[in-house]
């Protein structure tokens, strides 16, 4: 499965410090159905209010520093996952968001300088194994931090529960 961690898609670029209220506002916390959660992705990010109407399966979200700061709500990952966003590439992630994405098997990658190299609408190829981002529109490349260690194992297993179940089977 590791070898398939390469994604090709259109970029959506957002800025620094996009917090969990902007990704998925607190007023929707009572929701438990992922399809319902998906209707509110990025609603509070200025300029992205109609994101869920315009996003296409396989699109890639590109963000600045500290993406996902604030709440522990896993809804913030699920809302993007259920819009079929293929991956998130950010300058850096806030820690709980990062962990939630790993645990849900949702590909995320830290790439310094990525927001300077990509504009919304650019066609990207993201290789989560090598950490390399190719901007196919501009013909440029940026190198990020490849996934590694335990986080990679959990992410490529399809999330924490799949990883644990595999682990339990091995133990048996």
């Amino acid at each position, binding site marked *: 499965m590791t070898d398939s961690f390469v994604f090709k898609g259109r970029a959506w670029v957002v800025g620094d410090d996009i917090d969990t209220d902007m990704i998925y506002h607190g007023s929707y*916390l*009572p929701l438990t159905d992922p399809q319902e959660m998906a209707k509110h992705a990025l609603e509070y990010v200025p300029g992205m209010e109609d994101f869920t109407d315009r996003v296409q399966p396989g699109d890639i979200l590109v963000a600045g520093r500290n993406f996902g700061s604030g709440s522990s709500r*896993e809804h913030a990952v699920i809302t993007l996952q259920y819009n079929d966003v293929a991956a998130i590439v950010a300058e850096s992630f806030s820690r709980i968001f990062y*962990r939630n994405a790993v*645990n849900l098997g949702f590909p995320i990658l830290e790439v310094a300088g990525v927001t300077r190299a990509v504009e919304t609408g650019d066609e990207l190829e993201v290789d989560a194994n090598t950490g390399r981002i190719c901007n196919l529109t501009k013909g440029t490349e940026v190198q990020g931090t490849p996934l590694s*260690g335990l986080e990679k194992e959990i992410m490529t297993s399809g999330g924490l*529960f799949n990883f644990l179940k595999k682990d339990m089977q091995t133990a048996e």
Partner: protein
Amino acid sequence: MPGKTIIEKILSVHSGEDAWAGDRVWADLDLAVVRDFGGPNVVLEYEKQMDGEPVWDPHKIAMTFDYQAPAKVVQVANNQRICREFAAKHGIPHVFDVNCGVGQHVLLEQGMILPGSVVIGTDSHMNLLGAVGSFSSGMGTTDVAAAWATGRLWFRVPESIKITFKGSYDYPASAKDLTLFLLSKIDTTKTIYKALEFYGEPIDGLSLAGRLTLASMVTEMEGKIGLIIPDEDILSWIGERSGRKVDAVLPDRDASYWEEREFDIGGLEPLIACPDRPDNVKPVREVAGTHVDQVFVGSCTNGRFEDLRVAAEVLKRMGGKIAPQVRMIVTPATTEVAVEAVEAGLYETFIKAGAMVTNQGCSLCTIGHHGVLAEGDVLVSTGNRNFRGKLGKGSEAYLASPAVAAATAVKGEIALPE
């Protein structure tokens, strides 16, 4: 080989491994907590994954309903019911329902949080329990559901930053101002995932409430945990409540820190975090006179008895009435705080001043309940977050101490206490 930091020690004990910063370890958990937000998601995920299997240890699971207490919308009422039914089915005794208050504070008062423990929960401010030297961490649905199944979770052992304060300050400066001072001085891109250890005379002098204030906003510093070594008073407070002999976890003398910082807070003055970031901190005097529509005293950061007492004293000293155009909401953190505040006469002071005193809980911090803001409204809050539109699109929030919040309510504009 150098010695270990507090977090390296705690995670070594809980993983049974020789844990060092940067290592990935699987650690045994002492407690896995859900709220009425996140809780139903955890229950549904657990049931989907575990298919009726019993939980790892019903006594090490707790539920605290503080998000929307009591429920305002039917969906949350349903969610709370999902949690209660799961608890009954699995024999989980520790359900702190909508009448109890802010989860972490309730667990602390119940003697369920010990120094050196590892606690997780669906609250990004779970880590305020670092105030008593516990490694507590906010987590999402999947983590907590997995914890309920196995009693263990993976951790990347954080690097530690040793922060030492020196100097002294006087009223009206408070633990909140010390916290905002630190937020303004550190680069939060460099504290992501770090464990902070706090030292120095100003820390030694903090009460439990003050320690909780500081530790709670380590979340806004993007840190994993802020650890304060409990003093004798706090150890005996926890000892009495837990019925157990408790000890502090101390770092080794030769522990290796990622960074060591020293801050002189001599002459600290009241500070305020301006919109839209908790680290956008200015002296109160620089923004004094800014019009304010609503004031909130409460939250997991400043909802203890002594926070309410300071606010009440300022109200009294400044004439006993809030400005007519201001709405003031006061929320005690827990039942215990509420009872103490009633007995001390604080409720009477607040109500006669024109404030509304709500039941214990997270109140308006969670936007689930009451006190939401209109477009253009300005809030001064003793809470911990002032992100754009958190309490209503087009509204703004400032973060300050209970003393500044109360003075602001009296004046109808951002003000220093007299």
